[in-house]
């Protein structure tokens, strides 16, 4: 079982986290530029809720600047379950399955995210099938890795009944 969010070693730390959870590791800056061409830059201020639990936006988010926190539970009693660092991607689950957002995401600092909407993704797919294939396959890989983690976790929790 891994608890990266609790042992999220900061800054210079060489965090003992999985190096598999990387989105588009093979893509070069030109590929990224073509992908980002289809994204919208949204700026946020510290404290702003960027994604709301239960929301229905079918979007994928790329953190360009700033840190955010993942919150679950009641709005008056939010619990932080993870921190999202700049240079991360999040929101892939709802982006792929279209189901409501499972957690809220709020900005800790000012920053900017780049949003890939499903519609923009479809435009990308129509214009650049190769890049689309890479994006889809990599999202599938990341989701599969998460499923594996979750499976392992369930096996660990089975004693709880």
């Amino acid at each position, binding site marked *: *079982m*891994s*608890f990266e*969010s*609790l*042992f*999220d*070693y*900061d800054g*210079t*730390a*060489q*965090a*003992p*986290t999985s190096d598999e*959870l990387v*989105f*588009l590791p093979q*893509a070069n*800056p030109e590929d*990224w*530029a073509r992908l980002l061409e289809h994204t*919208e*830059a*949204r*700026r946020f201020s510290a*404290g*702003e809720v960027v994604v709301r639990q239960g929301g229905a*936006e079918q979007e994928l988010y*790329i953190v*360009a*600047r700033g840190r955010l*926190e*993942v919150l*679950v*539970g009641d709005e*008056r009693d*939010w619990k*932080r*379950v*993870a921190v999202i660092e700049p*240079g*991360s*991607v999040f929101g*892939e689950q709802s982006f792929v399955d279209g189901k409501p957002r499972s*957690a809220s995401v709020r900005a800790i600092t000012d920053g*900017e995210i*780049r*949003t890939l*909407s499903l519609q923009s993704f479809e*435009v990308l*797919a*129509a*214009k650049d*099938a190769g890049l689309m294939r890479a994006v889809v396959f990599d999202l599938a890989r990341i989701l599969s890795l*998460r499923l594996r983690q979750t499976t392992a976790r369930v096996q*660990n*929790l089975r*004693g*709880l009944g």
Partner: protein
Amino acid sequence: MSNGAARPVFPNYLQLPTYLPLAAWGVLRALAVAATLGLAALLLERPQLGLFLMWQVAIPLVPLVFLVAPGLWRNLCPLAAMNQLPRLGGFTRGLTHTPLIREYSYVIGILLLFALASARKYLFNHGAGATAALILGALALAFAGGLLFKGKSGWCSSLCPLLPVQRLYGQTPFVSIANAHCRPCVGCTKNCYDFNPSVAYLADQYDADRHYVGYRRFFAAVFPGFVLAFYLLPAPPQIGLGQMYFGFASYMGASLALFAVLDTFLKASPNTLAVLFGAAAFNIYYWFGAVTLAGATPWAWAIRAAVLAITLVWLARAFATERRFVAHAVASAGGPAARLGAGATAAIERAAAKDAIEVTFEPGQRRVAVKPGETLLAVAEQSGLKIEAGCRMGICGADPVAVLEGAECLSPCEGDEKTTLERLGLADNTRLACSARVKGAVTIGLQPQKRGAAAAAAADAPRGDPAVGRVVILGNGIAGVTAAEQVRKLHPSCEISLVGREKFPLYNRMGITRLIYGRSAMHGLYLLPESWYDDQRIDAWLNTRAERIDLGAHKVLLATGEELAYDRLIIATGSSSYVPQVEGFGAAGCFVLREAEDAMHIRTFAQERHARTAVVAGGGLLGIEAAYALHKLGLRVSVLERGRWPLRRQVDERGGVLLRDYLTGLGLDVLAETELARLTARDGAVSAAALKDGRELPCDMLLLCAGIRPNTALAEAAGLKVNRGIVVDERMRTSSADVFCVGDAAEFGGEVYGLWPASVEQGSVAAANAVGEQRRYGGTVPSTMLKVVGADLASVGRIEPKEGDEVLVREDTEARRYAKLIVAQGRIAGAIMIGYPVEAALVTRAVKSGQDIGAQLEALRRGDWRTLERAAA
């Protein structure tokens, strides 16, 4: 909740409150080292006192510190201080553990603990020299560990024999004291206690590595047995050394066996037994330790009772913490966010440099960063904001927004946009999102504001021909409504009757394909405020059919029996879908698309019959947009196009092929050079479309988009001159002097435009002439924009060159962009623009205004089409 970050469930050391400044901890640590060295010296100088302080005072208190405030120990431990010296001095080699060290250092710590603690019984308890050696040896080892390994991995978090005890007892601290050593954290160990004190032990227990968990559970299992053995076994020389170690092994074995039995049968959560065994060991220790500390006095009982009370609270807290931990683990089961690949950083920086302008949308304060030149509509749509869209060129008025700040940072309001805004009659800060392009920071309200009463009252002074008392307008589309609005503007006192066959007030006909895939039905499609007809004093007859025009009597007879007398009649009856003879057309599932109701019927049918496939016959603008709408509704769509490429009226072959490829990429099938031959039906509903080339496509729906046919029947019956449409002159007058015709029904100069902008222009001209003014119509430059997301296709004016024209082409195969300008006599006569949304707006304006671009021609030839913007400015 405040704006700050939420308090984490399990705060790490940087999030914990700090009780003392780091420097103070440093001083205290120096004192601790000094005291330890002093104790070693004391052991040699005054052995009895030294031994007493070591084994009867210091060591008996250590477990209590572990249980209550383990952070105090982690910060003050003299061994830790020695271990951290090399890091402070910058002379540590900072090595990372090898896999073998990582795996077994904790196990070695356990063995060291058992070896050293058991040796107390015959070596250290009474051996002052040995004890002093132990202390100095430990300080030296800790220092050596710090020399070699990074962070605290050389001793404190690996080999230290006290670590297993501290982790077990200190798992749920009563007082969390933030680590005062590690600035910065170097990530030296897994599930580091110093990093996150209240959760480190639980993370150990729930670790995915079975062996890693095993070592820690093993220690918890045997520890009570070890402590009990320590106190119950006689010390050598009363028993032999072998006998003593056999005793230790027996007690520990029994403890381990009990753990295993309980583990099997209690089926408790992973940490339950570790907590209970830790509590047992702690209480056994103080059961005997109480006597060591207080002698056989009532104080010993008091100590035992106090320890038990503390333990009970500790147990409750530990169990609760585990539940919170599990809840947290479940909530965050997705794990951390995935990192971006290495190529992203540079690309993100470059993208950020391009998107330099900030647009803020109200309500909600959504801030987006965009490239200069983008339209507010594109920005709002791409941000997923709720906004309507129609023609996307400022004519229909579907997308009015309020400019709250920074109006000067938008492209100027002119031409069609200005005319449309006048019709809408909203507040002065209104712009049409599709026409306003950003040049600097702006704040936009998505809800346009109403014009103040004062402004509305300041209308033009009354004018108009007194001979014109009654104006009747047939048709409630944009041509008829524009005519009505203009008549009212020019002639405040006449009666205006407006007869519309459709059930709805003026709506955005260019947006009806949205009714197919969108879920808001007509909501958002209306282009006028509800009170518009009343405000304009227009007598509206909706859902009403005009039956006959009596030119001689100047009357219109309605099918409901009423008669409307007129002084001037404006016919704006529009057009219907052209339906060629196709065998089998008319079965259920066959549709045309011209009116809002058609679109709603299509959506209804698709749902009721669970339609999966559709064929759209006709690859014109409407056919492609309808096919896209059906595709968005989830159907598999094939488009049939007679020619070699779709949109033949708007683009040339190069552009058409590019468009076809794009549509194919979206998932639409575009079949060129083929035509519908006949339709097959099953159970009364269409089931397949046979093509003229012999292919047959199964389909649940068939949509015919074969063009329009002007609605001329009324006019023809009345005796007006009709060719394809109702023939009009340049004043929009028909063959009868008091009767005008505008919009799709009108034929001007041999042409039936069938375009929204032409209807607007014609409506204005007819209205002016109807009330006695003189205005001429000179034709409309056709301009269209394909409403398929991402296609970015615009076409304006003439798309094929005539002799003597210059053709400028820009092409970017990689990005699938293509643009073509036709330059004739110093003006741009027409253009095809695919993938150049910003330039398309400039070019369209240049074509429509007939602006002389002689001065810009050189720049245009070089491919610098933004020059048109500078020219206009």
